[in-house]
């Protein structure tokens, strides 16, 4: 007696009763073009606010301050095969720190735009 091929599809469907892809974002991605317009030694706190909006965080430093702009992107993937489940999660961020002196002039900028690189994966891939 040969295994009936038409049973393969329902068996496969039974074996994969749940699988999912999910994505969770926090805040809108940072605008690289707007960040590129910032000029160290020229831009003021007002210029930064006009280009990037209100910061997520303000840190008072000894002789100035630092503002953080941030957005996060998390991707999750999972599959459940009868009694075995595999799950993966990847979280990455866009971050931009801008540093001001006491006069409110931009002194340093540090940017990482990585949120778009979050991946769906199951196990170390």
């Amino acid at each position, binding site marked *: *007696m040969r295994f009936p091929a038409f049973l393969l599809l329902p068996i496969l469907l039974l074996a994969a009763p749940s699988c999912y892809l999910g994505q969770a974002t926090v805040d809108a991605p940072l605008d690289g073009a707007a960040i590129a317009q910032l000029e160290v030694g020229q831009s003021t706190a007002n210029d930064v606010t006009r280009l990037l909006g209100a910061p997520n965080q303000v*840190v008072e*430093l000894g002789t100035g301050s630092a503002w953080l702009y941030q957005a996060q992107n998390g991707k999750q993937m999972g599959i459940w095969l*009868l*009694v075995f489940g595999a799950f993966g999660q990847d979280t990455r961020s866009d971050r931009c*720190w801008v540093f001001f002196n006491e006069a409110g002039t931009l002194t340093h900028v*540090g940017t990482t735009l*990585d949120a778009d690189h979050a991946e769906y994966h199951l196990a170390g891939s």
Partner: protein
Amino acid sequence: MSAFTPSSWRRGAWIGSLLCLLPACAGISYEHRRVEQPPAERAMAMLQVGTTDLQSCLDTMGAPMMVRKDEQGDGMELLWLWEETSAWGFFISIPTGSDYSPSLNWADRERHPQFLRLFFSGDGKLLRLSRG
């Protein structure tokens, strides 16, 4: 001789039925979790205490997770954090039909976030660093 005899069909049907019932009661899981990416090794190797300044550090390392005032001076501390964990686990649940059903969940999940801390002086020179 065929591989699928009536007795093997029956055995397969029993095992299949049991496996189909089990997911609600028991299972094994594997999870992998990544939070942020580590700074490039080449960028970290370029850091030199007393020489590297804040802007060149930001240019090569990108933006840190956290900035705060260095409590020991007039400088600041920059922190990068990242984590990659994998864990196996299992769960057993016994449905009793009442309001309370015993269950057991276990996973060998151990969180070991890695970090890089850089301390800069008030004039923006790298004073010291630590990694772990």
